[in-house]
């Protein structure tokens, strides 16, 4: 140990001990309130339960239940698919409209901050509030959305938006993307702000068109930002709960069309008729966690390799 310490001390500005002192408060908080509960939750998934009383160790039986027993086996694939749809929807939205907005904002000087603030407002509002707000707006009886469509002569487009399985999931996707977009706009804007203007100007003097400059200069420099935002978007989409909950209720109405993993977890943990609710719901939680963690790490890795290749 002393050897390590000495070596580190010469290599950097801080000794091992000092660094440890700096890290310790965060480490203790993190270990106690994040790691410990998570590891406990993991252990829950290997036991059978009677209400909140832990019974026998059952190994992977709860995981098997999720894939072989009703209603889970019917619902888990459907729910996962919707989570991925949420991710893809948000990605498409933020990497077209979001990126376009960020680029445009970067070029206009005037009122930039005003636009930035307005676009970020939905992101600031609680997702639960956003969900309830949209469910009121889309009500087929009293909702202003259909009323507006009728008022401007597009009555044919009026829909039971949340009552029709083919539109309901898209409503959830769009509302999620709409709310989230302020975040990518800010992040992309910040990344654009960090690109030295001289490069862009030089290219412009070389006669490159706006699009060429965007393709060959701006976009590559944006890749790290897009990568980071994508990972966060993925995590957000997989954990999505308040918006689907407010729009489709805990059962993912209509007929499971807006079901997502968190809702499945919630139903299993708290609305179940089974006394083994904790065991099965913990297994669902761990599956969700594995997917999130696995994909996020994979994305990070791809990104790092790509960056290394580029620079």
């Amino acid at each position, binding site marked *: 140990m002393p050897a390590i310490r000495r070596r*580190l001390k010469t290599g*950097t*500005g*801080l000794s*091992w001990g*000092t*660094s*440890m002192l*700096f*890290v310790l*408060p*965060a480490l203790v*908080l*993190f270990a*106690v*309130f*994040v790691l*410990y*509960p*998570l590891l406990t939750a993991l252990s*829950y998934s290997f036991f059978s339960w009677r209400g909140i009383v832990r019974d026998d160790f059952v190994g992977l039986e709860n995981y098997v239940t999720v894939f072989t027993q009703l209603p889970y086996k019917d619902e888990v694939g459907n729910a996962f698919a919707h989570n991925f749809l949420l991710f893809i929807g948000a990605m498409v939205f933020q990497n077209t409209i979001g990126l376009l907005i960020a680029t445009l904002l970067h070029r*206009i000087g005037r009122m930039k*901050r005003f636009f*930035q*603030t307005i676009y970020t*407002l*939905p992101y*600031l*509002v609680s*997702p*639960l*509030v956003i969900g309830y*707000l949209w469910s009121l707006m889309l009500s087929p009886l009293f*909702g*202003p959305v*259909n009323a*507006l469509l009728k008022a401007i002569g597009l009555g044919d487009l009026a829909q039971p938006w949340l009552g029709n399985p083919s539109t309901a999931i898209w409503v959830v996707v769009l509302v999620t993307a*709409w709310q989230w977009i302020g975040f990518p706009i*800010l*992040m992309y*804007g*910040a*990344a654009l*702000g*960090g690109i030295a203007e001289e490069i862009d100007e030089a290219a412009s003097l070389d006669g490159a*068109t*706006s699009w060429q400059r965007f393709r060959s200069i701006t976009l590559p420099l944006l890749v*790290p*930002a897009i990568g980071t935002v994508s990972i966060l978007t993925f*995590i957000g989409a*997989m*954990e999505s*709960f*308040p918006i689907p909950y407010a729009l489709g209720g805990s059962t993912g109405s209509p007929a499971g069309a807006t079901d997502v993993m968190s809702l499945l*977890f919630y139903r299993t943990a708290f609305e179940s008729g089974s006394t083994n609710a904790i065991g099965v719901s*913990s297994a669902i939680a*761990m599956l*969700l966690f594995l997917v*999130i*963690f696995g994909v996020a790490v994979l994305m990070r890795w791809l990104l790092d390799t790509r960056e290394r290749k580029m620079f």
Partner: protein
Amino acid sequence: MSRRSRLQSGTPLTRTATQTFLWIYVVVAISPLILMVLNSFRTTSEMAKNPLGLPQNPSFASYEKAWITADFSSYFLNSMFVTITSVIISTAVSLLAAYAFARSRGKFFRALEGLFLSGLMLPVYLAILPIFYLLDSLGLVSNLWGLIMVYSALGIPFSTFVLASFLRQLPPELEEAARIDGAGPFRSFLAVILPLVRPAIATVVVFRFVPIWNDFFYPLILMRNRDAYTLPVGLTRFFGEFQTDWATLFAGLTLATIPLVVLFLLATRQIVSGLTAGMSK
């Protein structure tokens, strides 16, 4: 195709197109929110009969009802206390940790940073039952400090991530100069680093403030006592009591949103510059 032409700045035509597009998205972004505010001034029956109308006799009655009857004022204070305290704690501990990560190259700290970073990907709310029993054994259920501890811990991954990447860009020579002058690591951290890191702190503060202020899940489970409710939990309860009283619901939603908007308006510049510094490599 059309996108290409819009990207060309300069000609009056494209400038107009840019402006038009930006203004259209302004409408998309805030019209639902404006509707929320407008509807809070209308009565429920007005809304049922005419979903699109403007307030006929605007009144603050719904706000009064939300603020007093539904006890919003005390939820509001709880939310303020919890959010501010946990943001301060988590930013402080994260800043210290991030500094160590930025300035140590040992594998141990690299692993630790990786561990913290992985926290970004953990759906921690799935561990709500263990968290509950943990707080219960510490006597912190229905205690605002329990909630503060949880939020502070949850903020560490994001905060260390942003702060460490910012700190890495500050040349180590800065503190070395101070150290040569005889200052210890803490002194030089306080005197040299702290002033420089302010924009990144602003970013962290705002991006932690928003989810904590809006979170309803943890307090729902962890705060049993009405006196310890935060605003979002108050809201869910309020949804139960005023299910069909839309006017009051809208007023409640608006009240819950205002502080964030104010905070953001005050700090946009700091946030953007903090992010800019953090994003560029």
